[in-house]
């Protein structure tokens, strides 16, 4: 589509005698002042070039008024009978294909989860907040779909084989290690059921929820065999691979936009002026806040310029002072974070030692690690914010530094919890320790250590949900009621709650990382997590609309989606490390679970491998051998180099075209000046 607004624009600076020049440059019949010129000659050329979808797409994207578009369409339709029969058959087919695509799109809109709510949220609170809810929806769908994997390959076969009464394979081993008695003895007080529900012990421990319930049944019929332990292992591995593929696929679309537009645009005034206003903004209150927001962003940019000027004007002495202050504050922040880690490790040790307490006190002891982690995740970022005030970075750097610190704190605190658990289960990795000598794990405290780890992850997930609901009910609603009904200075200064996107997203990433870590030991955890996220969606939506005011400091929506997914990948990496270590290094419990008689969980793969047919074995050996993998590696290197070269070539051509654009502008000005001179001479 051709648009030549310059044709008429430059005509306005000409003196009247040379209007003929302007008319000569106009090449279209449509000389309406309001619309760019449309080249009627291009339409038949487009038709000859492409198929049926070409002209249709062109019509939708042509910047002409509707009546002219319909006229063009009529012209196009009148030209159709001129083509051959093969062409017309092709056009009919692609037309019906288009109709089918439209119909399926309309049908799928029906299934899209929460689309109306998301629209309302985006209209009232902007793209940044909407991206949080889009991320939450993605996680809900991911959890449901990946749970269906687990259900199909592990849960349903287990249920079938258990009800069919197939007996587990027996083997010998030290008697003491094979003891496992999860069922409570004697009369159980009724509130114990509630406590058991919250902590995963008691009636919940020996159920499909945890690893310990699954048997190492290996069914072998005439033409059907199903190996539950192998299925369990492969399902866990494929679950991780599937989640990785989903995340990377979603990152692809976000990355494309982020790379094409060149990332951060701080201090970019023209962009704020022309693209700052969200046209989808609804409502009087939202609009006023949007205006304040744009005003704030412009002021922030002006402020950043001023700070940069100030920083450039510092004397050497002041610079040294500032940098040493920053280094000191960095170590202080690091010290705070390490103190949090120490607290978590102590709490985990204490909780594991006192694990046989009963009643409410026992419940508190069980939840102690979760409580300490949540408190740490709340207090330490607050203190780091105060530290950031002293550091005096530019506003954008401050936000990034605060986010990185929060991510580091959350993920590594989870890692500390797992490390402490590991130390207790494997007696700090020392197999000669008295407690771990017999079974290579601490069988006195942990009769079934996988179930215990699964219980810890289950408690973390549940506690996270409870805390969110408790904060909603006990902090946010009262805060709004106080601010709205009590008109004092203090209330106005505190103000209504702001929906801060980054910390909420980190909460989601943390929750998902916990689920990934626990999926191997607690197969139903993805389903529980999906339900938890659905409840969280509705809770956050309610608090957003009733208690929050839109944030003044916005979080940009396009690059932020990419950032959320990168942080999610960090969490995935942590969970993968845990899974690989548990599969390969720690001896599975002998009293429970599908792997009870194997030295490591992974060793079932070589064992089953030997029972495969010869040709399959040969094929798999070939794939694993050097003769196959080295050429494959070389080929993938070549493909990667090709794409890198392609990307750099595109980048260079973009830069060249941009320079050419500049030069053409200068050429135009030069020619205009020449013409003026000539006209003066004449």
């Amino acid at each position, binding site marked *: 589509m051709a648009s030549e607004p310059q044709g008429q624009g430059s005509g306005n600076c000409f003196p009247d005698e040379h209007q003929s020049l302007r008319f000569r440059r106009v090449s279209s019949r449509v000389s309406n002042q309001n619309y760019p010129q449309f080249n009627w000659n291009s339409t038949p050329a487009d038709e000859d070039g492409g198929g049926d979808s070409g002209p249709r797409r062109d019509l*939708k994207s042509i910047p002409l008024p509707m009546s002219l578009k319909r006229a063009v369409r009529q012209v196009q339709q009148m030209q159709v009978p001129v083509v051959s029969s093969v062409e017309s058959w092709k056009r009919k087919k692609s037309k019906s294909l288009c109709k089918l695509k439209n119909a399926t799109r309309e049908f799928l809109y029906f299934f899209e989860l929460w689309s109306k709510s998301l629209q309302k949220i985006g209209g009232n609170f902007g793209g940044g907040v909407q991206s949080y809810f889009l991320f939450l929806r993605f996680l809900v769908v991911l959890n449901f779909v990946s749970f269906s994997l687990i259900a199909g390959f592990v849960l349903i076969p287990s249920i079938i084989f258990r009800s069919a009464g197939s007996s587990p394979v027996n083997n010998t081993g030290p008697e003491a290690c094979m003891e496992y008695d999860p069922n409570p003895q004697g009369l159980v007080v009724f509130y114990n059921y509630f406590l058991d529900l919250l902590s995963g012990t008691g009636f919940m421990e020996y159920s499909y929820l945890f690893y310990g319930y699954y048997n190492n049944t290996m069914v072998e019929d005439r033409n059907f065999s199903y190996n539950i332990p192998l299925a369990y292992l492969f399902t866990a591995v494929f679950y991780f691979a599937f989640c990785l593929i989903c995340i990377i696929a979603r990152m692809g679309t976000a990355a494309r936009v982020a790379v094409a537009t060149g990332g951060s645009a701080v201090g970019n005034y023209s962009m704020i002026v*022309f693209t700052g206003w969200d*046209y989808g903004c609804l409502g009087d209150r939202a609009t006023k806040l949007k205006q304040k927001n744009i005003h704030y962003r412009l002021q922030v940019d002006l402020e950043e310029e001023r700070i940069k000027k100030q920083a450039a004007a510092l004397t050497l002495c002041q610079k040294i002072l500032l940098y040493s202050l920053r280094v000191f504050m960095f170590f202080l922040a690091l010290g705070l974070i390490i103190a949090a880690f120490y607290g978590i490790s102590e709490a985990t040790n204490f909780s594991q030692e006192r694990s046989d307490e009963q009643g409410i006190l026992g419940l508190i002891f069980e939840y102690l690690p979760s409580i300490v982690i949540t408190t740490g995740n709340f207090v330490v970022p607050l203190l780091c914010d105060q530290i950031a005030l002293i550091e005096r970075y530019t506003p954008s750097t401050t936000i990034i530094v605060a986010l990185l610190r929060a991510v580091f704190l959350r993920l590594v605190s989870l890692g500390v919890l797992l490390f402490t658990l590991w130390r207790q289960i494997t007696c700090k990795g020392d197999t000669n320790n008295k407690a771990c000598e017999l079974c290579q794990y601490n069988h006195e405290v942990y009769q079934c250590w996988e179930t215990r780890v699964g219980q810890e992850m289950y408690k973390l997930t549940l506690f996270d949900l409870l805390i969110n609901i408790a904060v909603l009910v006990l902090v946010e609603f009262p805060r709004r009621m106080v601010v709205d009904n009590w008109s004092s200075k203090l209330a106005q200064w505190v103000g209504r709650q702001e929906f801060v996107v980054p910390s909420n997203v980190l909460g989601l990433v943390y929750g998902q990382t916990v689920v990934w870590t626990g999926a191997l030991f607690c197969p139903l955890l993805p389903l529980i997590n999906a339900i938890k996220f659905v409840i969280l969606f509705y809770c956050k939506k309610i608090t957003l609309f009733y208690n929050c005011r839109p944030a003044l400091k916005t979080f940009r*929506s396009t690059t932020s989606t990419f950032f959320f997914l990168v942080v999610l990948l960090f969490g995935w990496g942590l969970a993968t490390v845990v899974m690989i270590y548990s599969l390969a290094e720690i001896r599975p419990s002998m009293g429970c679970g599908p792997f009870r008689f194997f030295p490591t969980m992974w060793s079932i793969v070589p064992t089953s491998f030997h029972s495969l047919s010869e040709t399959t074995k040969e094929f798999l050996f070939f794939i694993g051998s050097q003769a196959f993998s080295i050429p494959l590696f070389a080929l993938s290197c070549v493909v990667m180099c090709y794409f890198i070269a392609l990307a750099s070539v595109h980048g260079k051509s973009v830069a060249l075209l941009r320079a050419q654009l500049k030069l053409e*502008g200068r050429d135009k000005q030069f020619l205009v000046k020449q013409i003026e001179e000539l006209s003066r001479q004449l």
Partner: protein
Amino acid sequence: MGNKQTTFTDEQLEAYQDCTFFTRKEILRLHGRYRELAPHLVPLDYTNNPDIKVPLTLIITMPELKENPFRDRIVETFSEDGQGNLSFNDFVDMFSALCETSPRELKTIYAFKIYDFNRDNFICKEDMEKTLNKLTKGELTPEEVTLVCDKAIEEADLDGDNKLSFADFENMISKAPDFLSNFHIRI
């Protein structure tokens, strides 16, 4: 379900579907919205293409446009007479160009026309100052306004004539990550 409606002939609906990004249902819904702006003016039966235009003052009462600082300019840009009186064709055209599936190039063309207040096919300093004042509703001081406009022109102007031609504008928009999601009216 669509065969029962008598507002448009099938031929007309096909034409609308080909020329805009809307489906049949959405076009009928848009006609409902158009009609409720001026029920006595707009007929229910559009099969003979009546030449009815709803004036600017009624269009900008729509909730989607009411709070937009550029509502007058948007409606004027899409009207055929340039005064802001929209026929149903223009109405559908406007929401199609601003909808979610509309491509970046089309939106850039219309954005340029909206921000070009004096319609000289350039965004000069006065155009930009008017844009900025509408955006911030007079919250910035005049010096700040001048400073921001100077900086904005400095950033975007490639050919050095102190105003933005369409090529400069398009180049600047191509680097803006939020343009597509912001320049979008949900209807």
